[in-house]
């Protein structure tokens, strides 16, 4: 067994493999399938200050090698989460990242305040959800709106703060720089790509919201490029994601500069994918005689 430990600022992960927000719930269901303490961490389903019912209509659609989702941040609200799931996560030996969304700046502030009282390892500020009408991604598209929200949230919490970036941003590198300037502890990227599908027989859009978020293997090459560009531009650590389905993908992102990686859509291909990726990285390190992932991080 190689040493897969990574440090994201001061936070220690036993390995760099984290399950991505929205694809892993709060970990309970997958924990019935395997011991999720083997993971580096998990990022919760996006939480908002109040409970949300999410979007109507079709919520998932397959593409050639991806999926589009339009869940629309259905979630139990921060309170519901604290009551029902916080303890379950706190009892587990893994890094807990709480993903926070919102429609207004005030929503975000209230949510972050409330969650900051809990025993949480990292807040992941989701300013990149393409599936909600108000707020969400809107904050993460333009530099100035991103700056404003990160500045305020940075003052609101002393928890480690990671900002989740949108690939739909005008310029993702600039947004990452803004996050760094405003004191974020790291950035995570990418969220889903704004995408579309049409039913030619019904002559209608598939999704009630017309657009939905594309994830999965299809986006990997673009996500990797974005991670590489961002890693060359900022000094804060990066959590990388977008179509990672095996250890090779994970290592590509690490070589492009990521400190750890998130696995989303691939959980739906194989519920135990997290374990396989950890195993794959382990074997690669052994094979290549790599003592620490620091040796290969950002070498491209």
């Amino acid at each position, binding site marked *: 067994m190689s040493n897969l430990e990574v440090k994201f600022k001061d936070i220690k992960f036993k390995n760099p493999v984290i399950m991505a927000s929205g694809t892993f719930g709060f970990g309970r269901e997958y924990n019935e399938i395997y011991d999720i303490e083997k993971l580096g961490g998990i990022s919760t389903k996006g939480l908002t200050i109040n409970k949300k019912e999410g979007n109507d209509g079709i919520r*998932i659609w397959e593409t050639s090698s*991806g999926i589009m989702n339009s869940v629309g941040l259905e979630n139990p609200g921060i309170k519901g989460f604290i009551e029902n799931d916080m303890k379950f996560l706190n009892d587990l030996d893994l890094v807990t990242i709480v993903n926070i969304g919102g429609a207004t700046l005030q929503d975000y502030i209230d949510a972050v305040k409330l969650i900051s009282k809990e025993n949480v390892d990292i807040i992941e500020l989701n300013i990149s959800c393409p599936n909600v009408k108000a707020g969400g991604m809107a904050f993460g598209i333009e530099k100035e709106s991103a700056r404003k929200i990160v500045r305020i949230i940075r003052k609101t919490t002393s928890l480690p703060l990671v900002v989740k970036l949108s690939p739909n941003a005008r310029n993702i590198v600039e947004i990452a720089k803004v996050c760094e300037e405003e004191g974020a502890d790291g950035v995570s990227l990418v969220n889903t790509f704004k995408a579309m599908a049409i039913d030619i027989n019904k002559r209608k859009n598939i999704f009630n919201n017309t657009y939905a978020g594309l994830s999965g293997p299809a986006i990997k090459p673009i996500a990797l490029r974005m991670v590489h560009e961002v890693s060359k531009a900022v000094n804060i650590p990066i959590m990388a994601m977008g179509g990672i389905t095996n250890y090779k993908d994970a290592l590509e992102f690490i070589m492009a500069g990521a400190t750890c990686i998130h696995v989303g*859509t691939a959980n*739906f291909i194989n519920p135990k994918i997290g374990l396989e990726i950890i195993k794959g990285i382990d074997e690669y390190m052994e094979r290549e005689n790599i003592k620490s992932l620091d040796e290969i991080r950002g070498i491209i």
Partner: protein
Amino acid sequence: MAKIISNKYLGQDIHVMKIEGNFKGEMGQFYMVRSWDNYPVLSRPLSIHDIDDEGISFLYRVVGDGTKNFSKLEVNDEIKLEGPYGNGFPKVEGKVLLVGGGMGVAPLYLTAKRVSKLEDVEKLDVFMGFREKEMLKGEYEKYADNVHINVGGIITDDVDVDKYDYIFTCGPEIMMEKLVKMAKGKDTKVYVSIEKRMACGIGACLVCTCKTKDGNKKTCKDGPVFLGEDVFYE
């Protein structure tokens, strides 16, 4: 990874495939199945059609790339399945009717088998509707007191709700909704099995929402079986 024991074409685009292994499952539960690596991305939910000492069976209709892939499998080919998932039909007593429309008949075979063995079940009828031609009758007769089949018509027209304490139904929502309406205000309890697009299959991703009187439910985890009167049909 499991192995195909058999994969037969029954007509009307319907196939039945049997997979070797010691599988668990209750009536009305399902597995997430895939027989490919990369394409399509998602596994396909299939209801348990039967389980015996040799393995598990699925009855499926070819509708798209996933099920087409299943239909090409040959003996000894490999297939991956995760499950059993979902709640399944409740264990009940008294007079029971199973109503299946089209591929909705798939879970009703294991259901008939299991219900017929419940101690306090007095009577078990199975009604099935097909578009083109009768099929599977003999199979279901092994466990049902009475198997009625309707071809090309509307199966609900043949149902007398008052005769039963419980109706379990699976098929087009319009058919299931009809049965729920027919049973409204009566003592008959109707349980419906809902089909929604799924990704995780275990309750983590929230793409399979079924709107009910108690708010959003996860079809994969809280369902696929719901009390008919609780569901808002589409």
